[in-house]
Every structure is written in C-alpha cells, then in structure tokens.
C-alpha cells in the first residue's frame, strides 16, 4: 500500500426528497458542503480542493457549487459514473490525499432529479439496450425472476428487503421516507416491471451529501485526534459477457469486493455494517452475495430471517438504503459514506449498529450493453 492514511474528518448532508424547483442543485450542494465543513471544523480557506460527483447537473456543476462556498480558485473537478459518481469523486480525493498532494479536501455528491427525470432512469440513448427498451427497473426484474427460479427464493423474501430498509429509515432524519411499510404493502404496490412493484424501486430524488477528507496532517490541523479511516476505495467496471451463465453471478461485485478487501487488508467476514446500493430490492440480495458477505442463493432467505436487519448478524442499510433514504444518483455514494462515518463514530442515533468498527459501502452505476455493469465502487471505512 503506497497511499498514506486517509481519513473522513466530517460529514454533512441534507434530507433527501422531492425538493421544490427553487431548491437548486447549487443550493443543495452548498448546504451539504457547509454542513460537512462545519462538522469537521474546517474553514473554506483551508479546503485545498473540491471533488463533485453528479450525473444530471450539467457542465461544471462543481464549480457552480464551489463559487458559493468560498472555494472559487481552488482545483475543482466533476466526476460522472452514474450512480457511483459520488463514490468515484471520493476515490479521486482519497488518491490525491493519500498521495500527499493535499491534506484537506471536500467531496460533494449532488443531484437534482425530480424536475428532469420521469418514469425511471435509462442507459445513454446511444447504448444498444436503450434502443431495445431497457430500463434499470426492467433489468432488475429480469434478475429477480431468474433468482427465484434458480434458487427457490420467494417473492415475499425479496420484498423483505423493502420492509427491512423502511423499518430502518424510521430513525434516519435524512431519509426521504421515514415510515415503516408492511409486507402486504410491498406485494400489493403498483407493478413497475414485474415481478417488481413500486416499493421494490428506489425513488427519483433530490439531495446532496458531503464529506471532508483529511490526511493525518490535516486531522492535526483541525485538532481531531482520531477519525475513521478510508481503508479502501475500489473501482471496477463491467466485463463483456459471453455464454449462457447465471445472470446473477455478480462477478463485477465479486471483483469490486475483492479489490477493496485487498487494499484494506480486511476480510469479508470482518465487515460489521454495509451500506448497499439497493436501487431495487433484488439488487441488495444479489450484490451482497457477489461481495461474499452472504452465501450465494441464500440472501433472500437470510433477509427474511433478519440476518441483515439492525440487531442481526450483519446489518445492511441501517440508513434505510436507497429505497427509503432516496436516490439522487450522484449523491448516493457520498451519503453512504456519511452514514458509515456516523456509524463508526457512534453518532447514528436510533439506527446505530452497536460496536461497528468496519463498514463497507457499495455503489453500482450505469449499464453498458453486453457487460455486467458499468461501474462499481466499494468503500471500506475502519475506526
């Protein structure tokens, strides 16, 4: 490992949800950034660079945010990896700080969606799958139906992901939805892409989340004695698929997990808490299996049995996940890291995973026809 230790010195976000049109991307990004800087006790003048993840924010959204919070003139970069954009921005910050280029930088994930995205998100129009009629909901529905057929999982077991994550969200003041839902409500919801219904799908949301990333010298400058360490921030892309294998093989998740475990020097069974990209219920199940934290084909059954609930053996999405917190796509990766930061510093309130010292956050962003995905990020935070 050639990078110097890199830490999260502070975190801040705004509540995700459907914000009015006048609450702009710039407003939200600036609010989250200011909250994170206040949390870390860093002044704008001492922030050396800004890394911004977004998808639909248009050209130089990061600079538009930076100009509002006193970072004009500093290095600002914009990072797009679809739903992994926020985590990809963090990865660039992690590399730069770990390489010794900076001691204190700011990472912002932000998205304004409710005024520009209707009916679900799609691949780029130039992608072959888009011209065939592919939607992300449909892709996960194909996964769900095959998972049930191959592993004997039930529709109810898949729906249990939504019930669990909504139950967790009740204690998360940043979540778009903070109410429990029943199994019957999930099963009876309006169908979107069968077998998945509305409550199997994460919502279209607005929001922003930010973290201050620091070297050891940066922490000293802020008077912070200890802070969670970014032990790994891995990134992989999908491979071109051939043949008639298991559509839920999740090789991309396996590779993303393996890379993070390698960099962090952490084993899968040492993870105490996971923030998982549950853009759809089934996605949480198959990705956990791909990461190797649940046995293949067992994820749905284990979810129903409470294994991944707060108080279970491996709590997944104590924040409520994308299903409840909302999914402003570029912000999600940063929000996951905010949650892990709060979990590892004992500040997660009613959703605290007791004694959590190692957390993993997973994002999967985008699709490319013929591959098993576009981008997957895996972040490991340790105390």
């Amino acid at each position, binding site marked *: 490992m050639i990078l110097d230790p890199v830490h999260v010195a502070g975190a801040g976000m705004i509540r995700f949800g459907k914000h009015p049109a006048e609450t702009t991307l710039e407003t939200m990004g600036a609010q989250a950034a200011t909250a994170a800087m206040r949390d870390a006790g860093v002044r704008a003048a001492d922030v050396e660079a800004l890394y911004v993840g977004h998808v639909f924010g248009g050209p130089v959204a990061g600079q538009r945010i930076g100009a509002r919070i006193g970072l004009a003139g500093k290095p600002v970069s914009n990072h797009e990896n679809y739903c992994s954009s926020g985590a990809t921005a963090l990865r660039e910050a992690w590399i730069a700080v770990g390489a010794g280029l900076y001691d204190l930088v700011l990472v912002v994930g932000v998205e304004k969606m409710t005024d520009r995205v209707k009916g*679900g998100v799609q691949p780029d129009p130039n992608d072959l799958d888009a011209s065939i009629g592919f939607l992300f*909901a449909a892709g996960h529905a194909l996964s769900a*139906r*095959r998972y049930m057929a191959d592993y004997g999982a039930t529709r109810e077991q898949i729906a249990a992901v939504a019930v669990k994550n909504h139950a967790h969200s009740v204690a998360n003041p940043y979540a778009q939805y903070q109410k429990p839902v029943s199994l019957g409500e999930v099963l009876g919801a309006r*169908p*979107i892409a069968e077998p998945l219904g509305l409550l199997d799908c994460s919502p279209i949301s607005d929001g922003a989340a930010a973290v201050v990333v620091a070297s050891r010298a940066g922490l000293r400058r802020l008077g912070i004695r200890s802070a969670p360490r970014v032990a790994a921030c891995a990134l992989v892309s999908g*491979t071109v698929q051939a*043949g*008639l294998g298991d559509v839920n093989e999740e090789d991309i998740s396996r590779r993303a997990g393996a890379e993070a475990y390698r960099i962090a020097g952490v084993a899968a069974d040492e993870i105490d808490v996971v923030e998982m990209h549950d853009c759809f219920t089934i996605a949480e199940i198959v990705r956990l299996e791909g990461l190797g934290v649940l046995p293949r084909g067992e994820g749905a059954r284990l979810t129903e049995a409470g294994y991944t609930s707060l108080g279970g053996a491996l709590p997944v999405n104590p924040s409520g996940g994308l299903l409840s917190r909302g999914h402003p796509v570029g912000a999600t990766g940063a929000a996951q890291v905010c949650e892990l930061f709060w979990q590892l510093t004992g500040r997660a309130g009613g959703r605290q995973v007791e004694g959590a010292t190692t957390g993993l956050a997973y994002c999967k962003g985008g699709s490319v026809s013929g591959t098993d995905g576009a981008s997957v990020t895996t972040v490991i935070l340790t105390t």
Partner: protein
Amino acid sequence: MPTTTAESPGTRAVRPFRDGLVALDPPRLLGSRCAACGTTAFPPREFCPSCRAVEHIDKAELATAGRIHSFTIVRQAPPGMPVPYVLAWVDLPDDGVRLLTTVVGTQPEEVELDQPVELELTPFGTADDGASLMGFRFRVTTRGETR
C-alpha cells in the same frame, strides 16, 4: 444542412437500425465468432469476450430460434415508451448467445420461462433521411409448432 427536394433512389429505403447488427433478407441477427475458441458474441465484437483473441474474429449469422431465459412485463416507462411490453433475456442455444429483446405474440401474462421464441424484424423508427430503420424482436412460437 442543405435540403434536397428531389428524392434520390434509396432515400425511402429500409435499412438496419444499426450497421452490421441485423441482415434484412433473410432476417438474421449478425454476431461475431472466435475462430480460436468458438465463442459467439452479439452484438459483434472486434475481440473475443471469452479468450480475448483479437485476430480471426469472423462475422456470424445467428440462429433464429431462441428460448426465454428471463422476462419482465414493463408497466411503467418514461414518456414516449408505450406500456406494457415484455422485455426478456432470450437464449440462442445453438450459438450460446444471450440477448436482450422485446417479446411479442402472446398476452404478457402468458409469457413463461423457457418458452420457445423466434426472431422477427420490426420497425425501429425512421432515420433523418426518411429511411425506415429495421430492428428486431422475438415472437413466441405457437404451441405445437415445430422449429
């Protein structure tokens, strides 16, 4: 861009919606096949996704008979995409190819896993020059019908 009023031959022609992806007569999907390991790819690739060879990748016409590996009935889609429609992973067992496609020929509620389907061409809109673009979909094979 200058506009032409005279119709030149071919402007109302029919052509594949993407070059090299479908053949119109007879209707076929076009893929690529690795001479070294025999892996077939769709859409055609300039390399072999299995053995990574970049040489001796040949063009290949794919079999038209497939079976449904997984499917969904899409009930909600962005504006401009009429619902419901059936989207499926269809396997072409003869080629070892799995591809994404829409499926027609039966009520959406009657689509099943492993159901046999057959390739057909279908309009995929109109090009800027007026040509109609042909794409593909699969049709459920009538019960009892043999391939």
